[in-house]
């Protein structure tokens, strides 16, 4: 093989790809060359000299250009005159490496002795102690004794905060630059740097606010000493006292694998768990630092029942009995249709499945939804499943030949770790294309970037679809695409020129993007909240691009929908939606969507609302009125939210740390989280509450079913009874049994079981014992890698093109501005309750305006403006920023004090802006 090289390391021969460095080659045969600055995820720099080895290459005769052979016919090896750093030396054919001999040992001892001369040796108080590569390498390779006088050590003021979240201990830093390189190479926030020289050489933060990165916590993992420690874990516990419990992040649709590190039943810290198919070894700061909601003293502890107008503590029996009786009464008198259910996208699959069963089977109500029912609700996304990333796709493996298109999404805020992964694909040679209405961080790493005018998304998509559409060969292929003809008329007028004119995009770039799409081997399309909110034509357009590029169902290709919520995909898969059943099955009769339920409530048609894990009233306070008209409002929550305060009965639930379950992430990987904490109060998991209610309610249903059959034939009677029994069988003993039921009744989840999710086979990750020197980097994945469910398009069959229309956005002259709701990672979601460390990072309630626009309106930072749409008005102070495109006002989503719902009309809302008086 021309691309492979064989070399000998300590007498053992190993074959590796060309360009591999010696450390990696040695790693392959489990020969551990000690390293500090080298990290397998980053480019080598050769700063610490810990990895010195002897290297020799076959001697080449200058005259003949041939390898010289000795008398035995073996090549003569010429050793290099000095030791080489194994982390920067690429392998070559016939190379001989010696990692263990007196000279190498002498060098290793010397390097360690030198490093330790300026090390404070305060291991007993150092948070890294116990998982510290410097400790480990000193034990394994160190001199055992120092010739250095202890009182001659350098001392510095410590600790130095490098921002709110990370502290620097200069004395401990060995200046390996892993943190700096992580920020530059991986996070893409080059906010750390070196300052000064010599003894005063130090790490500094260059940004304002300091260490402004959503990935800063990872630097504490990869720092090979205790120089970087997190404010959250500082002096919390010693690492050997922690019990890591595998879990899955419940904050965003990436679904990062993590562990809760437990001590005395409390979460001490959150660490990433290696899973190359999801998060490699990284997590973002929200996942790492926002775990405090679990132990928050504000958590609900007992059921609450409204008595004399006030919520009062009650026993489980009392509360359950009350709800069951009332629901039964409503079912009797007004029918199941008078009951509505909302279940949030942060609940586990098991809860969601139980939820829809409870509504559809027990109560006989079709009215369920996974959205809060406000003007900001996103359309239900089916394309992410139908055209989703094909199963077996590993973004980590994608590089050359892969085109990644990010449309209407800001992964940094919506799914932070996806940003790292997308960037890595680009770094490995993939082509990254970002198409957005505004500048996002990902643009920096993109090969092609387009910024469209908000409202003209479909114009851009039409111009992208047109060449792909025309390229489909006429014979046969066209017929194999359902809906092919329908698109002809829509695309007839589409052209790049039109897109340039109507969407304001750059023509030549659009041209290049179209070329890239046409020649892609793999095509991955990410879309986010802005694309979703812009309407189904936009997401349909993206699905059509995939189909026309003949990548629908093809390996390593597909759509990734960044729908907010850790289990948003699971909620859609489980059929917690009015229009489809579990597994996207068709329903005989669709139910009401969330906003329709509230409309019905306002008109007095909704008798009961059951809300689990959602807070509609917080999102839209006007919904409180509607709730007051409902006879029975039941809320299942962690906290006494604005909605829970209006409820008649509130059930306290267990958090993700206190129970078992599974989440399905944006790539449709089903992953399991485990119980890490003993519940400290009598809360219950969501599914169990539903099961208790269902049991009480079904007891009567069975009787009714058997009473009804008396006049029917026996066979019919048996079938009816059978059905009734199945419908009323609520005997789940654990979430695992619910998952078995899901696997049995949802074809998509056919192969999913707790056992299959547990498999940790195929983790590349560490080789045995490697933790020894990459220690603290992250945890080995022992909790299982999860399993991806197949996308719809993978099943073969005829592919269809989705209905797509070019829409133009016109706005009245008196409302010339465009209001865009922008998602932020650190918003005011209840899952950030109690995590005060992140407060400074939270999105502020401001309206972002381009400085040019602000000037034209005569506005300074902090001036209060009124933003008025056809529906309502909103007041906010102005922030001038270049991140806002001209003519657009960006307003943060889910931030307290920003009643966005009162003004938004659609994806883009035409608004008038004026300085607010007073």
């Amino acid at each position, binding site marked *: 093989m021309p691309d492979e090289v064989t070399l000998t390391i300590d007498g053992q021969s190993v074959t590796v790809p060309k360009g591999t460095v010696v450390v990696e080659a040695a790693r392959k045969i489990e020969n551990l060359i000690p390293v500090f600055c080298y990290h397998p995820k980053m480019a080598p720099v050769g700063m610490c000299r810990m990895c010195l080895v002897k290297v020799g290459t076959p001697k080449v005769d200058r005259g003949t250009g041939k390898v010289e052979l000795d008398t035995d016919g073996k090549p003569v090896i010429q050793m290099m005159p000095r030791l080489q750093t194994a982390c920067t030396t690429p392998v070559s054919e016939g190379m001989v490496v010696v990692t263990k001999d007196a000279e190498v040992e002498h060098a290793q001892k010397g390097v360690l002795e030198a490093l330790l001369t300026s090390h404070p040796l305060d291991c007993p108080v150092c948070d890294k102690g116990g998982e510290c590569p410097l400790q480990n390498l000193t034990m394994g390779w160190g001199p055992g004794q120092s010739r250095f006088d202890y*009182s001659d050590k350098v001392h510095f003021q410590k600790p130095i905060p490098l921002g709110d979240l990370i502290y620097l201990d200069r004395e401990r830093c060995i200046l390996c630059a892993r943190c700096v390189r992580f920020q530059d190479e991986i996070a893409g926030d080059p906010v750390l740097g070196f300052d000064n020289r010599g003894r005063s050489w130090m790490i500094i933060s260059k940004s304002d606010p300091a260490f402004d990165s959503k990935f800063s916590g990872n630097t504490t993992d990869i720092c090979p000493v205790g120089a970087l420690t997190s404010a959250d874990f500082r002096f919390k516990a*010693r690492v050997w006292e922690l019990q890591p419990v595998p879990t899955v992040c419940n904050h965003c649709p990436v679904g990062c694998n993590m562990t809760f590190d437990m001590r005395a039943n409390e979460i001490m810290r959150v660490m990433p768990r290696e899973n190359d198919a999801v998060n490699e070894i990284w997590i973002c700061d929200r996942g790492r630092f926002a775990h405090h909601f679990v132990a928050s003293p504000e958590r609900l502890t007992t059921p609450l029942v409204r008595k004399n107008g006030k919520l009062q503590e009650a026993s489980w029996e009392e509360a359950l009995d009350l709800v069951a009786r009332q629901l039964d009464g409503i079912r009797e008198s007004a029918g199941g249709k008078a009951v509505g259910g909302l279940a949030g996208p942060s609940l586990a699959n098991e809860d969601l499945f139980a939820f829809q069963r409870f509504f559809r089977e027990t109560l006989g109500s079709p009215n369920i939804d996974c959205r809060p029912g406000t003007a900001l609700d996103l359309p239900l996304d089916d394309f992410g499943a139908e055209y989703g990333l094909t199963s077996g796709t590993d973004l980590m493996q994608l590089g050359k030949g892969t085109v990644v298109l990010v449309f209407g999404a800001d992964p940094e805020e919506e799914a932070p770790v996806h940003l790292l992964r997308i960037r890595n694909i680009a770094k490995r040679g993939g082509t990254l294309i970002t198409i957005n209405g505004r500048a996002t961080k990902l643009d920096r790493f993109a090969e092609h970037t387009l910024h469209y005018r908000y409202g003209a998304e479909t114009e851009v998509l039409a111009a992208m679809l047109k060449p792909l559409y025309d390229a489909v060969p006429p014979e046969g292929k066209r017929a194999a695409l359902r809906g092919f003809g329908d698109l002809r008329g829509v695309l007839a007028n589409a052209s790049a020129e039109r897109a340039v004119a109507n969407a304001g995009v750059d023509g030549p770039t659009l041209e290049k993007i179209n070329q890239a799409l046409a020649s892609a081997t793999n095509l991955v399309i990410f879309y986010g909240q802005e694309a979703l909110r812009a309407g189904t034509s936009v997401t349909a357009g993206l699905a059509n691009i995939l189909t026309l590029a003949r990548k629908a169902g093809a390996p390593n290709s597909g759509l990734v929908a960044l729908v907010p919520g850790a289990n948003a995909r699971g909620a859609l898969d489980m059929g917690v939606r009015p229009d489809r059943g579990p597994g996207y099955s068709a329903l005989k009769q669709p139910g009401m969507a969330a906003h329709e339920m509230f409309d019905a409530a306002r008109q007095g048609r909704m008798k009961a609302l059951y809300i689990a894990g959602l807070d509609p009233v917080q999102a839209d306070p006007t919904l409180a009125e509607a709730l007051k008209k409902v006879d029975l409002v039941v809320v299942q929550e962690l906290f006494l939210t604005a909605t829970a305060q209006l409820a008649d009965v509130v059930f306290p639930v267990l958090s993700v740390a206190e129970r078992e379950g599974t989440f399905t992430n944006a790539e449709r990987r089903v992953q399991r989280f485990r119980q890490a904490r003993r519940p400290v109060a009598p809360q219950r998991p969501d599914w169990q509450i539903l099961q208790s209610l269902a049991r009480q309610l079904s007891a009567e249903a069975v009787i009714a079913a058997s009473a009804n059959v008396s006049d029917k034939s026996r066979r019919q009677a048996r079938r009816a009874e059978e059905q009734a029994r199945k419908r009323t069988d609520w005997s789940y003993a654990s979430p695992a049994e619910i998952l078995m039921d899901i696997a049995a009744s949802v074809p998509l989840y056919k192969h999913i079981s707790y056992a299959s999710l547990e498999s940790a086979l195929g983790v590349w990750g560490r080789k045995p014992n490697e933790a020894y020197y990459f220690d603290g980097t992250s945890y080995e994945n022992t909790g299982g890698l999860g399993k991806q469910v197949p996308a719809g398009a993978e099943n073969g069959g005829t592919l269809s093109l989705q209905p797509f229309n070019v829409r133009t956005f016109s706005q009245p002259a008196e409302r010339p501005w465009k209001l865009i709701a922008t998602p932020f990672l650190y918003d005011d979601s209840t899952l950030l309750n109690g995590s005060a460390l992140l407060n400074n990072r939270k999105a502020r309630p401001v309206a972002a305006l381009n400085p040019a626009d602000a000037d034209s309106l005569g506005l300074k930072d902090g001036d209060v403006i009124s933003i008025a749409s056809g529906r309502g008005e909103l007041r906010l102070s102005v922030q001038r920023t270049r991140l806002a495109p001209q003519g657009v006002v960006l307003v943060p989503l889910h931030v307290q004090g920003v009643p966005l719902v009162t003004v938004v009309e659609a994806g883009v809302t035409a608004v008038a802006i004026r300085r607010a008086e007073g």
Partner: protein
Amino acid sequence: MLKGTMAYFKGLKTTAKYLFKKPVTIQYPDVKRPVRERFRGRHELKRFANGLERCIGCSLCAAACPADAIYVVPGQNDPAKPLSPGERHAAVYEINMLRCIFCGYCEDACPTNAIVLEHQYELSFYDRRSSIYTKDMLLVQPEDGYGEVPPVLEQTGRQLNPPAQIDL
């Protein structure tokens, strides 16, 4: 018969012999016997001469303890009012005397000689809960401190010392 009687007297002879010897029994608790210098009794948490706690909350004693009798929760020192030298102290320090086997490993492990097994051996309780000795109970009085704080522990508020200022 006679043989039996003789044996009876033989036994009494031993009794009579001890009747005039000095008794070895000590009238505890009226009389307390001194213990050896290296006796391992109830622990004490020591202080430095300046009154600062020696314990830095490192949990090494807990790690060394074969009986898992020690529970330490560390905390961060307020630089204005530190409890111990350096950044870290023990916020909670508990030893379960029912678990402890008085092996002294904790003493060996302690980097600051904070935990010392002393001579007190009167450890009995009416309930299990009181077998847990808390930091208040273990910590000696400030005036009983001894020894200077070693430089290795002087971590906060340090400036460059002279040799280090010679820039390379």
